[in-house]
């Protein structure tokens, strides 16, 4: 075995050569830039070794935006390829690689880190805590995600991209039919990132159950915190299934076992079954926090408490339980008996009930509210009709018998983009516009935000609406081209044009970040939206210890009532105390590098080298278990100084509630 050097770099495709050159130049540029600006030290001490949940969250979000870019370019390439019949822009092999990496990257390396990033920034603040329960583990989670994501992303220039779809079904994904190393990237990169996610799940459950401030009972928690809690529970139930399935896949591909390989007596359908046992809950793992974001945004900008808070909580718990009971709807056509298909049709349709409850709750929250049309609110408003289209087509697909018709067509592709884009992408955009000041101390430009919003929403609908009709008239998914006689051409062209508008929206978003970082007003209040929950009860941007004095909660929408009753907003000098904080650590990053190296060798099936690198991982684990560093204290003077710098400033909005 060992590395086949002549196949190491992918050669012969001008698109990929272009990518290789631009990657190399970007890397040189970054290294040069950091050295020139003497920023290496800053990067290491302030970011790479940080255990601060807010900074970790920001790193998650930056990675997610980059991955959105990568996944979005994949999407555009596919749309370009199918814009005309018989196009010869991408070969069929290249198209396979692109929809595979697009699917994996969008779900695992864009949606997940985006939401986990927002959870990191916001949840400890919402429950009035100074950090998560296990800060260093949190950093490790991030770095493992990062390691996995980078490993997956280099596949298209080194060794070849996985090409068996984001579902990587056996037998296609097995050694027999995919002999190159490309699919090893799938098995191993997702494994590494998955471990990180699992740790995040544990961390957030403990944080939310154990670190709530005084008076914050479960039923007083903000909705985003609730959804994060339930999401973490689903993560812990579902991710181990994926971990095991990927490990079995790795054994099959690397060491010749036959769990899923049919020729050796394995069961290929077991993979599909395990994949979706994880895969369906995964959809809820990304959807629930998004629902939490909408709940916060809608309540704030309707200037009312969330309607039906309790029913909302029950709905989330119901969704969490049901989400484990529907996985077969992804392979009705695999041929399980009528009893199985009927059972799963019913459970799937049942999920529409709690989801419908949530929809009505949001609508009733807005009813008679004094709605403020901020960009964050616009995303939430657009979410309602767009997601409903996704949901209704989902109920159509839920019927096993009918699914034989829709299965594997672009109807399905349109359906899940109508769920994932409004359900996740709109949500993270809403969340970013809303919480941006908490992270960076300034707002994103609202005018550019509206451009971003309109271009993106219109582009999205024009791109994906035609796909429903293409699918109904028989256009298969994962197909790189079609004939002129099929009659698909006009709708495909329309869809491709929509994707350009969509891309323009994303470009405005990137420009908005740039513009706001440079020019936006820094002199804003710590509570610019007149918001309701505790994250707004402290400075903007948040000081690294979050709260000088932990707030006390007396009701739902705690901060709103603090403002209304003028309670607990001020800080007496005598109340300032030393604050205990965790120390930074380079270990998570070192583990990231070790996992990356080990994973890379495993991808190339160089087991001995991988084992040697894995020894490093074990050494890291052992080292960590003898690490008795338990943090440091911030002296009173420093806390006082920080607090004086933002309290009682002009424009400080702590006094009134309108």
């Amino acid at each position, binding site marked *: 075995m060992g590395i086949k050097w002549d196949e190491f770099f992918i050669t012969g495709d001008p698109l990929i050569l272009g990518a290789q050159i631009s990657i190399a130049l970007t890397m040189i540029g970054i290294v040069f830039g950091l050295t020139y600006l003497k920023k290496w030290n800053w990067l290491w001490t302030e970011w790479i070794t940080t255990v601060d949940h807010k900074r970790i969250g920001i790193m998650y979000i930056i990675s997610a935006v980059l991955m959105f870019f990568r996944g979005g370019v994949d999407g555009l390439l596919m749309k370009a390829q199918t814009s005309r019949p018989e196009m010869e822009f991408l070969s069929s092999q290249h198209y396979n690689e692109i929809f595979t990496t697009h699917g994996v990257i969008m779900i695992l390396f864009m949606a997940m880190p985006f939401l986990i990033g927002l959870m990191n920034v916001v949840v400890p603040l919402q429950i009035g805590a100074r950090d998560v329960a296990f800060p260093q583990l949190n950093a490790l989670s991030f770095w493992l995600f990062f390691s996995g994501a980078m490993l997956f992303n280099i596949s298209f220039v080194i060794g070849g991209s996985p090409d068996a779809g984001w579902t990587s079904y056996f037998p296609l994904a097995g050694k027999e039919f995919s002999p190159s190393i490309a699919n090893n990237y799938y098995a191993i990169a997702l494994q590494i990132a998955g471990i990180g996610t699992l740790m995040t799940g544990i961390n957030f459950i403990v944080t939310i159950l154990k670190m709530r401030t005084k008076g914050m009972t479960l039923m007083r928690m903000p909705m985003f915190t609730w959804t994060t809690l339930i999401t973490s529970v689903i993560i812990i139930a579902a991710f181990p299934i994926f971990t095991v399935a990927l490990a079995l896949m790795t054994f099959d591909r690397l060491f010749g076992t036959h769990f899923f390989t049919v020729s050796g007596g394995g069961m290929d*359908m077991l993979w599909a*079954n395990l994949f979706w046992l994880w895969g369906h809950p995964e959809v809820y793992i990304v959807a629930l926090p998004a629902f939490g974001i909408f709940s916060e945004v809608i309540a704030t900008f309707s200037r009312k408490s969330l309607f039906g808070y309790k029913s909302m909580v029950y709905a989330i718990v119901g969704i969490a339980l049901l989400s484990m009971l529907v996985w077969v709807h992804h392979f009705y056509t695999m*041929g*399980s008996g009528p009893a199985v*298909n009927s059972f799963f049709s019913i459970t799937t349709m049942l999920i529409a009930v709690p989801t419908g409850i949530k929809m009505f709750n949001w609508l009733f929250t807005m009813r008679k509210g004094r709605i403020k049309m901020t960009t964050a609110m616009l995303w939430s408003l657009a979410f309602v009709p767009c997601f409903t289209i996704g949901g209704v087509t989902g109920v159509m697909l839920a019927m096993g018998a009918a699914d034989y018709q829709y299965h594997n067509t672009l109807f399905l592709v349109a359906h899940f983009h109508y769920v994932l884009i409004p359900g996740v992408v709109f949500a993270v955009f809403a969340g970013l516009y809303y919480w941006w000041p908490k992270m960076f101390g300034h707002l994103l430009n609202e005018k550019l935000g509206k451009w971003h919003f309109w271009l993106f929403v219109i582009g999205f609908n024009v791109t994906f609406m035609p796909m429903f009709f293409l699918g109904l008239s028989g256009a298969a998914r994962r197909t790189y081209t079609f004939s002129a006689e099929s009659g698909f051409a006009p709708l495909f062209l329309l869809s491709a044009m929509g994707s350009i508008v969509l891309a323009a929206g994303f470009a405005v978003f990137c420009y908005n970040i740039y513009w706001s970082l440079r020019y936006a007003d820094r002199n804003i209040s710590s509570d610019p939206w007149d918001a309701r929950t505790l994250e707004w009860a402290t400075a903007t941007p948040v000081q690294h210890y979050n709260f000088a004095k932990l707030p006390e909660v007396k009701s739902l929408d705690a901060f709103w009532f603090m403002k209304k009753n003028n309670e607990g907003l001020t800080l007496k000098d005598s109340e300032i105390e030393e604050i205990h904080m965790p120390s930074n650590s380079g270990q998570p990053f070192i583990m990231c590098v070790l996992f990356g190296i080990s994973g890379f060798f495993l991808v190339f099936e160089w087991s001995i080298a991988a084992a040697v690198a894995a020894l490093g991982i074990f050494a890291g684990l052992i080292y960590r278990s003898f690490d008795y560093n338990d943090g440091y204290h911030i002296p009173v003077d420093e806390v006082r100084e920080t607090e004086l710098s933002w309290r009682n400033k002009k424009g400080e909005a702590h006094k009134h509630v309108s």
Partner: protein
Amino acid sequence: MEKSAKGFPTSHVIGFLFSLILTFVAAGVALKTSLSFTVIMWIIGSLAVIQAGLQLFMFMHMTEGEDGKTNIINIAYAVFVAVVIVLGTIWVLTSGHAAH
């Protein structure tokens, strides 16, 4: 069980004895009887589940401390998930032509 925190660990000893008994019964059924294979599997399977439950209560401090309720919810959820995964998989993969 609350009292056993100090003093004689009664519940642990009882748990230990019951575990031994259950184990020996299982071994006896498997090795010393001439029941059919299916019956043996059912008997020792049930004994194993009973023993797992017993150990959770007697040894793992399930109901002790402030988090007793949380623990029970946890275990119930874990059982639910495990049952769904194992039985669900078997059901799905052995019905219809998925089985062939």
